[in-house]
């Protein structure tokens, strides 16, 4: 016997029975209402009756169906209870995706131990639903909710542990949002929490790392140095005591040269050496240790872009000054056919691809000693100091459309503008006869800046060596680009804008095919924080509260009555839709 009289909601619902009759009697005509979209109304029952001015009853069958539905809803409103098994809370697992998880001891990595733990957890206390979040450089949710270990195991294949850092805090924030404070959080990593304790009732932190000794290459660069390449390698010892390793360096197919390196605890050593510019890729490896990923690097030759420059200045003295500064930059190509930069005395366009530097050497009436106003954010002014410089220039006003870079008072000394074809036209207002600029370090810096700016606008890669996770910028002219990753996976970009930032999710050699040209760049694992395993630990911090256990609880079964009512209403809908309700 349902004591529905003690439930005000049920009584109110009962009162709906006469209301239902009243509704049938007092049906109104349709009121027009404009709505934003019918998308919210698509599941509504479309009434086939009504709309007329006459108020009339629907068929009795429909009425009785509605009456029965109402009664079922009345019962549901009394809140009938039944003992039902309540499932445990859903689980969200945050997986440390940094490469330090691959550190092995006795052939077993922290990643393997964490995976085994998770499998064990599923066998003993399977959660009703599980979501996985990878904590790499940025948190990333792994697909849909998994219901079984088989589905979780499938998702775990994406857990590669190749990231240079682990954003566990951000991943936990994401997990909290996804779980709406209701899910249990499980963090699987190789280090303890930052403050050493967990206060949340919903979080368990499990670390599977070991404080292992490790040598790592933490820094590597190869840069153009005149006609040679200058290489820097930095090897660090992240062990608890002094240890030795061997560094083997090999270029192309030449025999590897190795040298012993002895370092104290947490010491590092830098090696700087030169290579011929023609030397192929340089590979450096350390002896095998706990963490393989940081033992080897590969450095490709730096990208040497040169600018074809034509100096067409009639003044011999000025021409010699320009040529000498241009040659000193090392960025000038040996040929000047089809020039990409023309230094001349008039500001006129030449060629479809050429930038111009209009150097006005006409007799200056004013010699300025400063203060000079510089737009230091402009690429032409980078590194220029102009301390103690005397700059002689003709009194002039800024030409229309030009962006001034250096001013003396209101006289523009150096300005730049861009034409409709994207070419830059620079104007240098300088009379070297009574200036000292050409005798200061600022003079070659200025020409370096001009060539460097020109190079930055040329198509191709900006660098040939990058750290894992960094973006590599590719300048394109709009053609399709194909990128082949080290694992053979290809990514195709059908249309590109002026610049394409390429992601580097894994170490190795990437090939970039843009139009007819193919370029390569190398990505190396260089992350000292993650190579240092001394802070790794094994243990558990925090524990889920007891209410997460599996148990039987009194649960409302009002939904069963609700479902029955829904079934009746579905029948009602069918009758209305097929007009069998009789109209």
């Amino acid at each position: 016997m349902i004591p529905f009289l003690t439930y005000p909601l049920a009584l109110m619902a009962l009162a709906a029975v006469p209301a239902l009759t009243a509704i049938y009697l007092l049906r109104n005509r349709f009121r027009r209402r404009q709505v934003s979209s019918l998308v919210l109304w698509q599941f509504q029952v479309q009434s086939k009756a009504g709309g007329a001015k006459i108020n009339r009853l629907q068929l009795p069958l429909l009425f009785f169906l509605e009456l029965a539905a109402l009664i079922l809803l009345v019962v549901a409103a009394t809140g009938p209870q039944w003992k039902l098994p309540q499932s445990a809370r859903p689980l969200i697992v945050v997986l440390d995706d940094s490469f330090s998880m691959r550190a092995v001891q006795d052939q077993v990595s922290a990643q393997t131990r964490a995976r085994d733990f998770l499998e064990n957890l599923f066998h003993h206390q399977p959660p009703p639903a599980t979501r996985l979040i990878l904590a790499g450089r940025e948190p990333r949710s792994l697909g849909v909710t998994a219901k079984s270990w088989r589905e979780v195991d499938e998702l775990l294949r994406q857990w590669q542990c190749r990231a240079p850092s682990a954003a566990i805090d951000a991943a936990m924030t994401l997990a909290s949002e996804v779980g709406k404070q209701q899910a249990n959080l499980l963090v699987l990593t190789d280090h303890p929490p930052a403050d050493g304790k967990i206060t949340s009732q919903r979080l368990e932190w499990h670390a599977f790392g070991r404080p292992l000794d490790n040598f790592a290459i933490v820094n590597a660069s190869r840069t153009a140095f005149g006609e040679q390449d200058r290489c820097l390698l930095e090897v660090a010892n992240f062990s608890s005591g002094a240890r030795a390793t061997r560094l083997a360096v090999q270029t192309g197919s030449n025999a590897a040269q190795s040298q012993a390196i002895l370092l104290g605890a947490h010491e590092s050593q830098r090696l700087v050496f030169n290579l011929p510019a023609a030397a192929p890729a340089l590979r450096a490896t350390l002896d095998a240790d706990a963490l393989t990923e940081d033992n080897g690097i590969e450095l490709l030759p730096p990208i040497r872009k040169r600018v074809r420059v034509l100096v067409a200045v009639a003044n011999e003295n000025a021409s010699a000054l320009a040529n000498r500064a241009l040659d000193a930059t090392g960025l000038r190509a040996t040929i000047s056919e089809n020039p990409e930069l023309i230094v001349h005395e008039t500001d006129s366009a030449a060629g479809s691809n050429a930038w111009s530097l209009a150097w006005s050497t006409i007799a200056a009436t004013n010699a300025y000693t400063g203060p000079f106003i510089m737009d230091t954010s402009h690429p032409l002014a980078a590194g220029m100091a102009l301390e103690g410089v005397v700059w002689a220039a003709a009194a002039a006003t800024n030409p229309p459309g030009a962006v001034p870079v250096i001013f003396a008072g209101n006289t523009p000394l150096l300005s730049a503008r861009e034409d409709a074809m994207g070419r830059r036209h620079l104007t240098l207002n300088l009379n070297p006869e009574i200036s000292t600029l050409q005798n200061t370090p600022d003079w070659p810096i200025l020409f370096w800046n001009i060539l460097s700016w020109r190079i930055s606008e040329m198509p191709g890669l900006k660098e040939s060596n990058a750290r894992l996770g960094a973006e590599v910028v590719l300048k394109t002219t709009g053609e399709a680009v194909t990128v082949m990753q080290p694992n053979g996976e290809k990514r195709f970009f059908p249309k590109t804008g002026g610049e394409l930032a390429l992601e580097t999710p894994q170490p190795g050699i990437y090939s970039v095919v843009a139009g007819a040209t193919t370029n390569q760049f190398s990505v190396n694992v260089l992350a000292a924080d993650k190579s240092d395993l001394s802070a790794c630990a094994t243990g558990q911090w925090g524990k889920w509260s007891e209410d997460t256990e599996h148990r039987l609880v009194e649960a409302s079964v009002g939904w069963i009555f609700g479902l029955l009512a829904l079934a009746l209403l579905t029948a009602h809908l069918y009758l209305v839709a097929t007009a069998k309700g009789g109209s």
Partner: protein
Amino acid sequence: MDPAYRQALHDGEKLGLRYALQIPQVAASGWTGSRSGRHAGSSIDFQDYREYQPGDDLRFIDWGIYARTDRLTVKLYREEVTPHLDLILDGSCSMNLEDTAKASGAAQLAALLATAAANAQCTQSVWLAGEGFQRLPNDALMPSAWDRLEWTSKRTPEQAFEILPPKFRRLGVRVLVSDLLWPGEPLQLLRRLRDGAAALFVIQLLARDDATPPEHGNLRVVDSETGTENEIYIDASMARQYTDNLAQLQQSWADACRQCGAQMTTLIAEDLGTSLGELEAIQLLTPA
């Protein structure tokens, strides 16, 4: 342009003076400008000295120190950047729902965001998603100077993408203002909006009539975009279904936003002035 929208732009501009756009750290790169970026760069703000390392830019060597100490030392300056706001307005007819303040609210909200962006020294572009993505005339100026702000399109932003996609600036902050009331999978649109952005915010702007269940009785509902009519009898369960449908639609957008790393909030056009705290809560605005 409708004088009511012009007035709404004025109001939004006035309201926006109290706020500044919150720039995410990722957005602190890009074109050179007047905000401090996250890297060392080439502003006049001196940051540090560091010993020269192979590969360093020779232009930043302090030759004075070299002359005194015979050691190569490099000057580091703080980078300065101009973050950018791409504001995307849904230009469909549903944003101009009759007898509601939705269109004025959208204009006011757009003006508010643009002014807050200006307060944060951001540049801005305002895109109207209608027959393709079109920039509003004068959108780089103050909102009161904008022109041709109208909601007449019968296309959704998703369809607008297919006709004429926008050219968003890389690493900019993007904000989509729409009622989000169209069928389809939101993820694809969000991914396209999120691509290359430092942050994406989705603001669902509803009229109060959109957000509250319909009144009981017989209704002839007319779709504002297609003109399709449906005759429906509304009772409590229908009203609940309507609320559920809205919640389900919002949930699907919220899930898609979460997957894309976007932030989403819902505002009611009629209550705009009192609900700006929501924009602070999703870290889009901060008091100026």
